[in-house]
């Protein structure tokens, strides 16, 4: 009989190892976008991407240039979020802060926006960008698989091209459910695949991170 315990243990060890490498790749990739917005990547970013996904020009003209130039989303989760004044919004994978800043304009001073990002430097950047427009984002360093936010404390979760980066998507979705108050909602944009990715892609953190 095969040693199931050993093979499960090996699998978990391999996954933990890949996750650690993936974290480094994600940090490197998106720090690169933020630090070198004029560089070329295989995805659209900055104003070109935001224009492509239908962000109104009045939003982009009003937002800090640094937040717009570092934008690396895959769509516009704000289009269907229907954020109302006074609500608490969680931006999962808040990056340089563009979506969070726009959300904060919609919640107004009676609401709040919480950012969560793997990269503490990006959190600082998002907070600075928000402050530059006279608004506020409270950003926490953290992982989407263990969101550093209390149960039932959020009205809306937004995220943009982030969930696909996780090896543990079920866990991420369960975490989004946990932090939402009853009646709360999510509005996310992300990349999905109709076919099972090949093992060579799954095992390649550089490809996964992108």
């Amino acid at each position: 009989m095969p040693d199931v315990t050993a093979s499960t243990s090996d699998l978990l060890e391999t996954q933990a190892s890949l996750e650690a490498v993936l974290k480094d790749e994600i940090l490197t990739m998106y720090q690169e976008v933020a630090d070198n917005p004029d560089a070329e990547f295989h995805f659209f970013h900055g104003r070109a991407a935001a224009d492509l996904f239908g962000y109104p020009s009045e939003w982009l003209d009003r937002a800090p240039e640094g937040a717009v130039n570092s934008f690396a989303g895959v769509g516009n989760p704000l289009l269907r979020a229907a954020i109302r004044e006074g609500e608490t919004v969680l931006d999962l994978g808040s990056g340089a802060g563009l979506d969070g800043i726009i959300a904060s304009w919609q919640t107004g001073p009676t609401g709040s926006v919480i950012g969560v990002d793997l990269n503490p430097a990006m959190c600082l950047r998002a907070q600075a960008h928000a402050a530059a427009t006279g608004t506020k984002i409270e950003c926490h360093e953290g992982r989407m698989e263990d969101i550093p936010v209390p149960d039932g404390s959020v009205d809306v979760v937004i995220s943009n091209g982030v969930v696909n980066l996780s090896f543990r998507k079920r866990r991420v979705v369960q975490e989004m459910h946990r932090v939402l108050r009853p009646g709360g909602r999510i509005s996310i944009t992300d990349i999905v695949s109709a076919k099972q990715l090949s093992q060579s892609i799954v095992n390649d953190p550089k490809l996964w991170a992108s």
Partner: protein
Amino acid sequence: MFRLLEESGFARVRSAVVPGFRFRKQSTQNSAEAYGVKAVMMTAEKPGG
């Protein structure tokens, strides 16, 4: 993702393709198309409230 949301207790799960999404590099776009990769918008609600 759609199924994960429903299995995790979300209701009124909706999805739509992000119009205009594509990768900048043609080689990446070609690989993405081979795997049926696309960008989607998803909304859902946590029941109650």
